[in-house]
């Protein structure tokens, strides 16, 4: 009986720790999304140019604002997010709106809401490919210190 009580107490204590820990640190936060999406967009843009045989230009993302469509109160949790990016490339200022679908593993698919089906021709193979510039995947570190959520 004493042994059973010990096991129960340990289980309850462990459960409390798990619940307590999970209550304050969501994996998907606005800080992580706003840090990762612009960097990956810049890489995907350069990759798109490179695959087409152009000079690989990396855009300079000047501003990013992302919000969750699922948890509008706190800007956290996986699901659908919207990101508005402003960037300059070759001296020209441009904007792009991305629909970002985030999964529970901290990975996402981002697509340009205006032109998500654009295709490019791979200069080296001649194959038709989805343009990485308008649709790309990425992942963020769910253990980093960018735990800030909404500051709207």
């Amino acid at each position, binding site marked *: 009986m004493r042994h059973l009580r010990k096991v129960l107490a340990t289980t309850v204590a462990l459960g409390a720790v*798990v619940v307590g*820990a999970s209550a304050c640190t969501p994996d998907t936060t606005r800080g992580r999304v706003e840090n990762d999406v612009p960097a990956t967009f810049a*890489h995907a843009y350069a*990759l798109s140019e490179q695959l087409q045989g152009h000079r690989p230009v990396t855009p300079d993302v000047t501003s990013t604002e992302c919000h969750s469509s699922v948890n509008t109160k706190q800007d956290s949790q*996986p699901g659908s997010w919207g990101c508005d990016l402003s960037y300059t490339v070759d001296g020209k200022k441009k904007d792009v709106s991305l629909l970002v679908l985030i999964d529970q*593993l901290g990975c996402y*698919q981002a697509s340009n809401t205006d032109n998500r089906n654009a295709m490019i021709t791979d200069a080296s193979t001649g194959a038709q490919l989805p343009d990485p510039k308008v649709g790309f995947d*990425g992942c963020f570190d769910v253990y980093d210190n960018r735990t800030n959520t909404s500051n709207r």
Partner: protein
Amino acid sequence: MTTTSAATTRTPITTARTTAGAGTVFGVELRKLLGQTRTRVVATVLLVAPWIFILLVLHQDQLPLETLYGRYLKTTGFATPMVVLVTATQWLFPLIAAFISGDIFSSEDNYGTYKTILTRSVSRRAVFWGKVTAALVATVGLVIAIGASALIAGLVAVGDQPFITVGNLEVPSTAHAIGMVAESWLSVLPPLIGFASIAMCVSVLTRNSVLGVVVPVVIGLVFQMYMFLNAWDTVRHALLNWPMNAWRGLLDDPSYAEPFLRGLVVSAIYTAVALTIAYVVFHRRDIQEG
């Protein structure tokens, strides 16, 4: 006089007895595993599957865009092993671990051969660790072989164009690209060993081959279903399926190893707990009935 004679006759027999170690049991068990028709058939199917997959992808217009690396299947041959890895971590790896390790102990119960083995010159410890090592080596070997097959399939069917990282940067060096693919596949081995250990634990506890295979698969399914839920993140991090995705951080730009390092701890805990329970039960069990 008779007593002395008996004693002198008995002594040489005792010293001549050799005790087979875990290495001998490992060799026998590995040969048994590799000699099974079902193991050979399943291994062949799993090794051929990536080739069929990439050939089918190349003959259609659509790409599996919803899968990480799916959009790059026609861009670089290095995407093939990555897509296979993404799919395999969800369902296939727990199944492989259970299939190989789930009946390595219980099959002896089914055939009633424990009594024969353990009353010969093999200790229980040697039998236990020999079987555990053989099951782990066979499981790990099959997974590495699938990775190698998928990589060769991609390189042959698509080509060795530069690898693209999770962060969408090109890796021009082929040797570096092969290293990154190998790194990602090797990073799933700790949780894979965890699943294999659970399978062996169930095999020892239930003495039933069907349960030894089915229970770990069900555990893997339940874990995977929780991974899809929008539930407590900390619980998800403690499940054995979580470290199977740690390679995404290793291949990102900039890369981060925290998920992998934490995953190592999680996998080590599952492995240690499962094998300790299995060892204690196996060590104490009564084998009088076979």
